[in-house]
């Protein structure tokens, strides 16, 4: 059997690019200043991401390919997850060129780890057996742990890294034990043959699946496994927070869809009541806690928990519409959420990695463009039409109601309405209050503004032409 290189070229390019970045950094670092080095590396990484994106499209044109016996598969789901991860990575690279040297001297390592992490996240969506899944999961978790702790002078960053390490270790332990039990019950690790082997329900399989779900729950910050999220989001360098908030969700949901909904549809259908409870709990805890936050990064951390809840709720019906909806939602979420973090980066001070809501007072007058884009991203996050976030929610919503989960739908719209309150409070601070101090716009670079405008334009364009993007993602 020949290996279909075409189908895995996007990942090969990303991992190869990571090595390339490391080498370039090694030979350039002596001669160049830190900032210059960071700019060069970020452009190099961007080029790698762009090539990978093109290859994603050519690979997708080949249709469904199974590789390495049955351990990897490239299909439309893989392509969609790859695309969302690549878009997120590109945005994060674009905004980081000036920001990265402000918190670390190891710019080369930063870009390398970021690319490795992206590559592993893409692999998650390709993994078609439990072993491959575990390898990809570990690779991107370890990269994220290192990335979260790169701001060494800031104790919060170290704490974030440590916390993420411990919780990831827990999650991995649950995951690997669950995988072992599933193997014990079915005698296979290939997802394709799980379904037929799992026809006979056994307690061993049940426990295995439950443990796997707990592992996923930790990584997706599903309540009650969400405790680490706000601390890690707040402590990590903001580009890393932006990257992990979207990237982790994308990779984990891709794997969740492949492992549960596609490979074990009956198990998924039998556990809808548990999943519903988890989803409603997650969004409610996320939103209610976000209401009382004053730190913007913490608020977005809790809001990201809430969005994980929406995504999980949207997947409960397990239908094709549900999967399409979740993929579309992730795509829109990449732009609006990274977008919101871009604004935070723009006004962050070099020493702190945190912004209080009150620091944004009067931004509407002092930095009208920043404030305008922030308002756009926040409106989209709260799902006000006709922005991208509205259609994301609408698709999830349609899947939920078509599946007949009326109460879940009601819980979701109410949550969505509540969430508007804390997003609006940021807008209140920016527009309805005047601040005494001038807004410290320190990190503004061309790349950052380019990223902000690109994300903002996409939030509008997806809203006005949703059909094109849905087809692009799900075909």
């Amino acid at each position, binding site marked *: 059997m020949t290996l279909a290189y075409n189908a895995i070229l996007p990942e090969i390019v990303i991992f190869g690019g990571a090595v390339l970045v490391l080498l370039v950094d090694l030979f350039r670092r002596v001669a160049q200043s830190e900032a210059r080095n960071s700019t060069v590396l970020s452009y190099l990484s961007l080029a790698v991401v762009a090539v990978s994106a093109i290859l994603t499209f050519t690979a997708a044109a080949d249709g469904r390919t199974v590789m390495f016996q049955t351990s990897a598969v490239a299909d439309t789901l893989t392509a969609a997850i790859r695309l969302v991860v690549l878009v997120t990575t590109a945005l994060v690279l674009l905004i980081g060129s000036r920001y990265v040297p402000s918190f670390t001297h190891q710019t080369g390592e930063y870009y390398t780890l970021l690319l490795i992490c992206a590559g592993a996240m893409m692999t998650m969506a390709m993994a078609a057996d439990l072993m491959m899944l575990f390898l990809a999961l570990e690779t991107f978790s370890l990269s994220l742990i290192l990335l979260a702790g790169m701001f060494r002078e800031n104790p919060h960053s170290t704490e974030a890294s440590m916390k993420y390490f411990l919780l990831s270790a827990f999650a991995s332990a649950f995951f690997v034990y669950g995988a072992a039990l599933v193997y014990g019950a079915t005698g296979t690790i290939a997802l394709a043959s799980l379904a037929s082997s799992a026809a006979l329900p056994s307690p061993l399989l049940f426990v295995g699946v439950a443990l796997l779900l707990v592992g996923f729950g930790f990584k997706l910050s599903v309540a009650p496994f969400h405790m680490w999220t706000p601390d890690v989001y707040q402590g990590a360098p903001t580009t890393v927070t932006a990257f992990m908030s979207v990237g982790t969700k994308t990779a984990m949901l891709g794997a969740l869809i492949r492992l549960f909904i596609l490979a074990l549809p009956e198990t998924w259908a039998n556990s809808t009541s548990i999943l519903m409870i988890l989803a409603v709990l997650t969004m409610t805890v996320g939103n209610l806690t976000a209401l009382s936050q004053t730190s913007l990064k913490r608020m977005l951390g809790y809001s990201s928990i809430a969005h994980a809840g929406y995504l999980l709720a949207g997947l409960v019906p397990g239908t094709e519409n549900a999967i399409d909806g979740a993929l579309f939602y992730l795509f829109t979420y990449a732009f609006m959420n990274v977008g919101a973090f871009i604004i935070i980066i723009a006004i962050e001070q070099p020493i702190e990695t945190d912004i209080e809501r009150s620091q944004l007072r009067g931004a*509407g007058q002092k930095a009208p463009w920043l404030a305008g884009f922030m308002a756009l991203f926040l409106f989209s996050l709260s799902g006000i039409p006709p922005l991208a976030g509205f259609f994301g929610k609408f*698709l999830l919503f349609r899947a939920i*109601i078509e599946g007949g989960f009326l109460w879940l739908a*009601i819980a979701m719209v109410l949550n969505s*309405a509540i969430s508007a309150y804390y997003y*609006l409070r940021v807008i209140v601070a920016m527009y309805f209050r005047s601040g005494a101090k001038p807004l410290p716009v320190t990190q503004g670079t061309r790349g950052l503004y380019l990223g902000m405008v690109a994300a903002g334009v996409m939030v509008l364009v997806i809203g006005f032409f949703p059909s094109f993007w849905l087809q692009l993602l799900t075909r």
Partner: protein
Amino acid sequence: MFDLLTLVTFLPLLGVLALFAVRSEMFRKVGALAVSLMTFVVSLFLLVNWNPMEPGGFAREVQFNWFPEIGLSFHLGVDGISLWLVLLTTFMMPIAVAFSNLYVKDRIGQHLILLLLLETALIGVFLALDLVLFFVFFEFTLIPMYFLIGQWGSENREYAAIKFVMYTLLGSAFMLVAVVSVYALTGTFSIMEITRVLPATAGIGFQTLGFLAFVLAFAVKIPLFPFHTWLPDAHVQAPTAGSIMLASLLLKMGAYGIFRLAIPFFPAAAAELLVYVILLALAGIVYGGLVALQQKDVKSLVAYSSVAHMGFIVLGLFVFNTQGVSGAILQMINHGLSTGALFLMVGFLYERRHTRRFADFGGLWKSIPVYCAFFLIIAMSSAGLPGLNGFVGEFSILMGAYAVNPGYALVASVGVVLAAWYLLTAYRKLAQGEIVHQENRADVLSDLNSQELSMLVPVVVMCFALGLFPNLLLDKIVPAVELWLPGR
């Protein structure tokens, strides 16, 4: 794509883009006024070749795909009802823009951009024939209104702005569930399709829940007693142009939604529950009138009078006969004109004296007689004096209500008396008596200037025109209502 309906809807949005392009405040002011006037003129062309077609009675329609994967199409249409609401919108907008041009000093460019955005959203709501499109425009009105209240409002504006948005969002949350459930049942978002299919397919349980979900969203908007508590806050805190928009147009979205969606989709439930809605409407009429009597602030008096007047409109919609329903539609236009003009008058006064408390006025007749004359005319039009616009609508609603249940008409006529009472009281407190405060003397206080008159006179002319020749509107309203009525 370039037909009249799309043009009317998106002309203000094009204006917004143009306003972004220019920097000079002068150009922005002139530009916004020009765009809003142009939209009005273009919207008048809707009357040309008026030829409503069966079924549905739409004179013009336009439809193209927007998001076919979810069945969402960009579908607009105009019939004898939406026509007048669109014209009301395009008529009131230049007046609001002119007021802001004259008096808003702070960030006027942004202010005008928000007003024009609001205009596009409002016209979209009134023309939408696709349920999701309706929802998109309906929710989008929140953004400009939120900023208008929050940035240019009075002391308590933050609270009022957030309260306004949260009430509406929570109200429409259930509507969104109902919208998608309706789609799951009928497989379409086309409003006319749903009207045709849904009543026959949906069981009474589904209908009841759907009706309640829609009515809750619209009851908050109208506002129907007891969902009205956001309204006085929003009105009192909003800038004058915002109040005009809110009273004249935004409240109408709720009544229009009930007329266009809630009742036709769920007729069985509407028939079942109409008594409760009517009782709430009557409660609103009496409550709004009584509370308006107690107000010490001119603007909150007008705000509570809106609660009472909107109660009339809901009452008319739910009596299900030609007189009642066409009266309600007519009254939507009348209330838009009269209350818009009342807020305009309050705005003129506030810009001169920076207070709205009755206690600070008195004897204005001696110092600013022209102002007082206009105030009296508009107050009378709002109170329903024969010969002015308010009378025809109110009378028609009362007739319709009487035909169903004389008790309804009796309670509602208490509201008519109350309206005359609080409006005349307002006039007495402002205009009559002796001048107590030095600031109100003729040599300090200036009367209406030509710019202000140019805003007021068109409204007053319309008040007389509709009062004397209501058939101008009714000729198109009644056939549309008669198409709407069967099966109720």
